[in-house]
């Protein structure tokens, strides 16, 4: 019995009597039912809708794979995938690096560091809509603070949100500003979890500060880096509110991301079936991206 119990524990399952197990199921059942109702069922329904021509008002008709076949030839969708990828490529490396840098700066136990940490985290408490409205003022080429400051050093006004070359960049800068607190705090927690003995050992071995960072800090941050990169990739692929409020997807389609296209298809053009197919394509892309990240980080851990 003890052997069976310990084997079960090793497998991650504690032995339960039938009555206790039933009690557990009963307790879990409401939450599970709610999850199925508000999350599982809509996903299944959306999958079914993706095979129909549902327009929100009239009854849907089955169209087979027509919506999925259309995805590859729909230039608007293809361009929006490129825009989302562009956003991810721009924000993930820079945002991760800056968050880590901020975490390294604020981990010191200096006087007033608590207040600085609070200030860094404050943007995270502001909604995306409010953030975008604030930044639309900052980016304004006529009244905006950023162009005013640039003009003091002789830089010509930049049409941040309406120029093809800077529209996506303006969203990236704003997004990093808002998310830096969240990811910075995650890095900070991970940094504080690294045993001091590792640094002491590295020091004895003659490692300087950079070597300590390269061979102690970074390896120990591996799982956290993976988490931050994955979360930022997923968030980046789903970016919508910033583009909706700050640039309305423009200029032309310079910031029209996949989710923005899904929004237009579903709620402006009332093509729910096709929008569902677009959403599932995005879902597959995010899963693939996550698997790639996992593979990359697994390799990195192996090297270490």
């Amino acid at each position: 019995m003890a052997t069976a119990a310990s084997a079960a524990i090793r497998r991650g399952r504690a032995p339960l009597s039938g009555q206790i197990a039933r009690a557990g199921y009963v307790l879990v059942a409401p939450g599970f039912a709610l999850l199925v109702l508000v999350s599982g069922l809509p996903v299944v329904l959306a999958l079914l809708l993706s095979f129909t021509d549902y327009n929100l008002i009239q009854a849907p008709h089955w169209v087979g794979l027509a919506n999925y076949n259309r995805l590859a030839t729909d230039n608007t969708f293809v361009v929006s995938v490129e825009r989302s990828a562009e956003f991810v490529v721009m924000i993930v490396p820079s945002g991760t690096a800056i968050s880590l840098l901020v975490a390294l700066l604020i981990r010191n136990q200096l006087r007033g560091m608590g207040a600085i940490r609070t200030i860094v985290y404050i943007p995270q408490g502001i909604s995306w809509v409010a953030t975008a409205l604030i930044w639309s003022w900052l980016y304004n080429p006529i009244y905006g603070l950023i162009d005013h400051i640039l003009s003091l050093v002789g830089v010509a006004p930049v049409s941040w949100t309406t120029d093809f070359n800077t529209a996506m960049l303006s969203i990236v800068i704003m997004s990093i500003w808002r998310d830096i607190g969240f990811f910075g705090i995650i890095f900070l927690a991970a940094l504080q979890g690294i045993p001091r003995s590792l640094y002491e050992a590295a020091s004895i071995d003659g490692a300087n500060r950079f070597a300590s960072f390269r061979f102690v800090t970074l390896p120990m941050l591996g799982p956290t880096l993976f988490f931050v990169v994955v979360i930022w990739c997923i968030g980046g692929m789903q970016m919508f509110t910033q583009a909706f409020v700050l640039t309305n997807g423009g200029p032309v389609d310079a910031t029209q991301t996949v989710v923005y296209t899904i929004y237009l298809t579903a709620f402006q053009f009332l093509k729910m079936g096709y929008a569902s197919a677009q959403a599932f394509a995005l879902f597959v892309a995010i899963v693939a991206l996550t698997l790639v990240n996992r593979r990359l980080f697994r390799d990195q851990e192996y090297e270490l």
Partner: protein
Amino acid sequence: MIQNYSDALTRRRFLVMGSTTLAVTLLAACSSGQAPATSAPAPTSASASNGGAAASKPTVAPTTAPASSTSASSSGPATIEFLNIGALQQTVTLFSDKLIPAFAKAQPSITVHMQTIDWGPSFQKISTAVASGTAPDVFVMGGIFTDPLASKGALLQIDDRVARWDGAKDIYPNVWSDSKYQGKTYAVPMNLEPQTIVYRKDFYQSAGLKPPETWDDLKAAATKLVKKNGSAVQVEGMDWNLTNNVSAQQSFINLLYQAGGDYFDASGKPSFSSDAGHKALDYMVSFYKDNLSSTAFVRAGTNAADFTAIGKSATGLVLNQDVASDKENAASVYANLGAALPLKMDAQSKPNGLIYINKLGIFAKTKVPDAAWTWLTYTMEPDVLGPWNETLLNFSSRKSVTDAASFVKDDPNLKVFDDAIQYTKPQSQHPAMFQIIQILNKAVLNALYLRASVDDTLKSMDSQVADAIKG
């Protein structure tokens, strides 16, 4: 230990806990998820007989609602859900304090609940409500709502009712087309937003120029009045009202109409790559090629300033609302603004411009169509429609109301906008119009940003719009 826990958590307790959880969940699910409506229920007989607090206030509403041959009062009490899209705070106050109480007094058997929503999500709100069968009985509709909703059976056809309604004759005749789908009427025009030329009087006078009437006039004035620092435009010669919405295509359609073109040919095929389309887009793009206008000037987000009003452009293409807003918010700026009739392509042509028409529609599956029509026609009464539109700084669809509105007749610029209405026509209607205007807007912007040639842009418009029509 486990045994003790098991004893404490008996089957009966589980059942009680489960039942309680289920009951709470069901109660939560059954509660109304709707936001509280701005409503003014019909006064009770006591308050009505006493005048009631609201009814005792001065009112601009008629004391009697319009007579209807099929009044709701003949078929018992009715409740109307009214969605007032785009209402401002002063609009809500007007309806809550005056208009709805006055209606309730005249039609005690009809209770009106009003909800408001911004224009942004309004189409989605109506579409989803139609899908769930919970659409408001009467709702305000935007410029291109008619075909997308009527083609899906969401709107009540009202030809017979309109034919019997006296007020129909007072509505500007050229705006009814926006309320029709396949020749049948599904909405009543409620207010109008004509778009025409405004210019800086001080700029034009100092350069000895007259307000532009033709395309050549405008180009010549823009060339003379543009201000640049190197190649960077500092003051535009002409502002084509670029926003982060769909206004680029609206400006293009203005020019397309002036050149004698339209969205579709007689067979219903897209006809943007027509001679008129080429003339219109060539003309518009030439301002950006010649640095008379700049894509850096975009009215986006909170940067919603009318560039002409603030002196960043010599001339602009704007709506009456912009001018009314300039007048209300910046009187000193307003003194420098002049308005002109819509442009003519050349001296031989007629002026032509675009007009946006908001309307009132009735949900096809309303349970109270007669009461809904009674409420709709009440809101179209001059003493109701006028004050309502004045809160929005909009022109009423009834000519007598707009002509009499003091904020219009006492203002020379808004008077020009009023005169411009006769030269305007609305955007074409089509069930896929929401998609079509997005396609056109992107294509026009691509051309204005000089990322595509005029020829390629127009061909692309035709093919993409044809695809959108196919579904």
